[in-house]
């Protein structure tokens, strides 16, 4: 586990350490098994192509979960992810590197809690943001 970060360490505009994922077909099958989402679009190439896409697609919710990991890896055990939202804009294919990234947009104290807001996204090898979203986290403060 990385060392604990504190509210005071974070500046607006700071980048979240990127997380690189190489999504395989095997991982899509594992996700299907864990999530119970057995839509054929995500493992049956013939079916996927019949719907007009080039190959099977990475599940939108898997990408949301990867953004969850991006945050929990960064905030450490004392940090808390309170909100994550994202929209599934672009399709991602297995076999490609998927980059999970984020940036701090705002920091504030509310009801005694130290909040950080970030924009987060997944990025395909062409540099396009396929799953843009936002995350809200609570970090420990050195002041306490």
């Amino acid at each position, binding site marked *: 586990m990385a060392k604990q970060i504190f509210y005071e360490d974070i500046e607006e505009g700071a980048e979240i350490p990127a997380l690189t994922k190489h999504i395989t077909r095997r991982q899509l*099958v594992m996700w299907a098994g864990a999530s119970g989402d057995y839509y054929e679009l995500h493992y049956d190439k013939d079916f996927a192509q019949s719907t007009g896409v080039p190959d099977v697609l990475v599940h939108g919710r898997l990408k949301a979960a990867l953004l969850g990991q991006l945050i929990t890896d960064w905030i450490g055990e004392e940090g808390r992810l309170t909100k994550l939202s994202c929209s599934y804009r672009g399709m991602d294919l297995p076999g490609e590197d998927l980059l999970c990234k984020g940036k701090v947009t705002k920091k504030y104290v509310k009801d005694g809690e130290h909040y950080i807001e970030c924009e987060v996204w997944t990025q395909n090898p062409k540099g396009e943001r396929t799953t843009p979203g936002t995350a809200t986290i609570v970090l420990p403060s050195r002041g306490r």
Partner: protein
Amino acid sequence: MAKQLYWEDVADGSELTPIPKIATTQMLVKWAGASGDLNPAHYEDTFAAAQGLNRAFVQGQLKRAWLVQLVTTWIGDEGTLKKLSCQFRAVDWPRFMASLTDPKEGETWWCKGNATKKYVQDDEHLIDCDIWVENGKGEKTTPGKATVALPSRGKS
């Protein structure tokens, strides 16, 4: 559940109630994803083709589980499956996803069986059966045997 089957109801040669199965790519992925047996030969066509097996094929263990269902459904809650064996003689491929609802002809598999022997041993009322999975062409791709214990009307 269906009504309970008793030892006395079964004769040599009695048929086990057949069960139809339609193997789809979805069924294979459910098995792979849920079991954690992630051999790509069962969901990646190119991988299976490289092994000379044309395209992703049905897991042998899944067919074995179908046979277990055939037997346990037939014997009901009060029956006990004692022993089951099967051999994977031929490969089965899931049906093509031509449509989401209807199987093409010959794309339904049947799990079937026959009672071959009735006997009482150590106070248990036993039945031996031949069981098998049959493809749409009527070929037995997965033959096997099972031994079950059934309740007897003689004792209650």
